[in-house]
């Protein structure tokens, strides 16, 4: 249930920004999570909806994008996107890789109405 903690932090950021930007209502929240974070979207929506009750974001729509895993090969320098979680370079077979995408927990933006 790391979804819970991530949702809490997210709601904290949303309410802070909404306050400083004088929003009376947050209508949409745009977030991106890397696949490696293993968020279960339905669970995340559920805890998010529970957490925003009574806040400025109570009717906000959650736009959640899951980013695929990408890595760069340290041997042949090629970058690869994978959807199985097979961490082997398809070009040269090396397993000396650096993850370049897939671990994000990003809040891109929020949408809303000014006071």
């Amino acid at each position, binding site marked *: *249930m*790391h979804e819970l*903690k*991530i949702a809490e*932090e*997210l709601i*904290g*950021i949303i309410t802070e*920004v909404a306050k400083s*930007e004088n*929003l009376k209502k947050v209508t949409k929240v745009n*977030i991106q999570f890397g696949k*490696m*974070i*293993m968020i279960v979207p339905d669970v995340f929506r559920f805890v998010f909806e529970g957490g925003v009750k009574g806040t400025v974001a109570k009717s906000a729509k959650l736009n959640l994008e899951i980013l695929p895993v990408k890595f760069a090969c340290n041997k042949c320098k090629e970058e690869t996107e994978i959807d199985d*979680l*097979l*961490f*082997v370079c398809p070009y040269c077979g090396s*397993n*000396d890789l650096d*993850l370049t995408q897939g*671990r*994000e*927990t*990003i*809040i*891109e*933006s*929020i*949408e*809303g*109405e*000014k006071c």
Partner: protein
Amino acid sequence: MEIKIMKNVLDRNKNKANEVRNLLKEKNVLMVNMISSPGAGKTTLLEKTLENLKDKFRIGVIEGDITTDRDAQRLKGHGVPIVVINTEGGCHLDSHSISKVLPEFDLENMDVIFVENVGNLVCPSHFDLGETFKLALVSTTEGDDKPIKYPMLFREAKIILLNKIDLIEYTNFNKASFHVDLNNVNGKVPLMEISCTRNIGMDKWYNWISKQISSK
């Protein structure tokens, strides 16, 4: 209207973790974040490791436990400082709770702090504590499919210990397929087969961890 934020949702945890990491570096203390499923053998590994290394190094322990201090009680006889963090239902430790208890250790006179995280293979691997590295412990009784199911942990760990090797013949744990899966997820990480209770492979572990502590 749209307001751009572009921020890591876990920034607060990350920033605090970096603070912890800097402090430990300044004090020259190694911190090991131990992650496994419930019952894989983290506390048993700590018991044996304390027994073996406490005369050689100045060791501290942080016990992450949901509600009790049972694990800390088991380690008490060794005379090393132990601090319990109760997560009150939380399924993982975070950097704020670590930062809060660090002042309870005499960091000037400490070589290594072992952190037993809450038993869970998913959540702890997403929260940086400021540790020097993560240790993943799996046991033969939980099945051989863990690397594929929990790739984040197996990619992030600096060492993997396969415990309860003494029980392997009573299980359907397939070592070959475990190796294949682990190799696919992380072909670079060292793997050691051990039995904490039967003392199999433990010397190799003591040597490895001693080297990490000495060369910090």
